[in-house]
């Protein structure tokens, strides 16, 4: 029994390690390529450890495209959408979770309906309107719709608040003369903090990795988000097969996401698991 158990554990570990190597290999290969010079990159058989290793590609790509500005643009969108959008979403979630009001279910169902609308259907009229009011090539079309909250977030927070906030607590606050907004801000918000954090982490990834929206609206390099910048580098350098430079760029684009992920890992896994199981 002991031997059998050890064998199973051994095989499990082996499988997981092989899987991890397959998963990580493309990342190592990216980093390795990004440190090679144009001659070494086509060495056969491929070398995993670049020799000589050089940071020139990073320097070159940093000056070839306004990457810093790209980071900044992505960050501006994320900050606005996450701070205001999440606050708005949690207000609505609280009302849906804890207060009875006429037409509550109907309104909620209507909002849920938006989840069914694919972005490609609404992007064309949105583009037409935003271009009429001269918002094209600004960050506004990417920020403003996000400020109105997000139904997926509202749904998730509502589920959480229904379970986590005891109605007695709200009643008690009411009797103490606490106003509606104060009850929300001092009781509901603190309790929902972990759920909001989870949504913030997911929302950050969503904004940061978004491509189609920024691609439609942002045209001048200085105004583009990091994803659009990186994609445009590809079209510039692929004809010259400058893979080291392209790999340096894509690695740079990944750094913030991976950093955020490592620091907020708990929230990601939690929110994914909760939304998946209850959705």
């Amino acid at each position, binding site marked *: 029994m002991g031997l059998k158990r050890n064998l*199973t554990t051994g095989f*499990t*570990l082996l499988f*997981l390690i092989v899987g991890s190597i*397959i*998963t990580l*290999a*493309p*990342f190592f*290969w*990216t980093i390795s390529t990004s440190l090679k010079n144009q001659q070494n990159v086509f060495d*056969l058989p*491929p070398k995993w450890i670049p020799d000589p290793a050089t940071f020139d590609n990073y320097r070159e790509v940093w000056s070839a495209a306004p990457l810093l500005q790209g980071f900044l643009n992505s960050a501006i969108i994320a900050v606005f959408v996450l701070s205001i959008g999440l606050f708005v979403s949690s*207000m*609505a979630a609280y009302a849906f979770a804890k*207060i009875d009001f006429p037409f509550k279910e109907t*309104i909620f169902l*209507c*909002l849920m309906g938006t989840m*069914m*609308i*694919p972005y*490609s*259907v*609404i*992007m*064309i*009229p949105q*583009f037409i309107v935003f*271009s009429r009011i001269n918002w094209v090539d600004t960050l506004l079309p990417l920020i403003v*719709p996000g*400020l*109105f*909250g997000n139904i997926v977030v509202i749904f998730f927070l509502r589920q959480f608040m229904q379970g986590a906030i005891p109605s007695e607590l709200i009643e008690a606050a*009411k009797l103490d003369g606490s106003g*509606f907004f104060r009850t*929300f801000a001092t009781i509901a918000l603190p309790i929902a903090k972990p759920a909001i954090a989870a949504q913030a982490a997911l929302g950050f990834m969503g904004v940061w*990795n978004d*491509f*189609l929206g920024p691609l*439609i609206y942002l045209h001048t390099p200085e105004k583009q988000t990091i994803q659009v910048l*990186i*994609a445009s580098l*590809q*079209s510039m350098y*692929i004809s010259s097969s400058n*893979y080291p430079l*392209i*790999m340096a760029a*894509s690695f740079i684009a*990944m750094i913030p*996401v991976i950093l955020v*992920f490592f620091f907020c890992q708990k929230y*990601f*896994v939690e929110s*994914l*698991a909760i939304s*998946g*199981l209850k*959705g």
Partner: protein
Amino acid sequence: MISYRRKEIGWAYGFVAIPVLGFLLFGLLPLIASGILSFTKWDMVTSPKFVGFTNYVNLWKDEKVHKGLFNTFFMLIHIPLGMFISLLLAMLMNQKVRGVSIFRTIFYIPVISPVVAVSLLWMWMLNYDFGLVNQFLWDWFHIKGPNWLGDPHWVKPSLILMGLWGGVGGNMVLYLAGLQSISSTYYEAAEVDGANAFQKFTRITVPLLSNIHFFVVVMGVIGTFQAFSQVYVMVPDGGPEYSAATVVFNIFQHAFEYFDMGYASAEAWMLGVIILILTMIQFRLSKRWAYND
């Protein structure tokens, strides 16, 4: 107390007002507008012309639209493949091995990585002459690898391969959570009845995870039908013989490259209706097979 109740209702409406306004401004109105646009011909320069069902009739005859639809349906293959791999990984990780959180993190990194960056690195991985994949195939199996992104038959498998690499981690986390919620008494009872490992897997594990299978399939179908970025980055022209183009890619081309807004809207509506129908079918079917506590 009645006045308090009225005040409370007022506040509640206030709290939901902004998302409702957002729903009208950025959901419902654009939806209606795009429906109307789909009956016009409009290049955004001259004024729109009402053309009746012409756009829809043309869609029906457009070979590129057929290809986009075919490619998108073909790509659905990655859903069962991905479910199989992620369930396998989740089951491995559910055996109390050490370092599970490390493995979970590793398998999850591709999920959170930006699609654009991932597409670029896979372009390099799949490079015909110098890519790691073909190198590996040659060194280990002496197989001459295909021209992944340059051959119309291999573009879709390439995208599926990349999609699996980037997607299994997310579903794995879901399955792991599901596995952990299955009570061990089921397995103990089955053991008493003399069930073997395979029977336990097919009779207990798979059915008890049915709500997760359902979630994964629904989200997978919706995601596949909305795929765009990887195609746009990896094969900006839609691939050899348009063999990688998705429906959204085709819509994008019509809207933002040819500025044929009416036609693009019609195609977008077609896509919306397809997604709606597929989702409804799945919900119908789920009543037959999904298990709920």
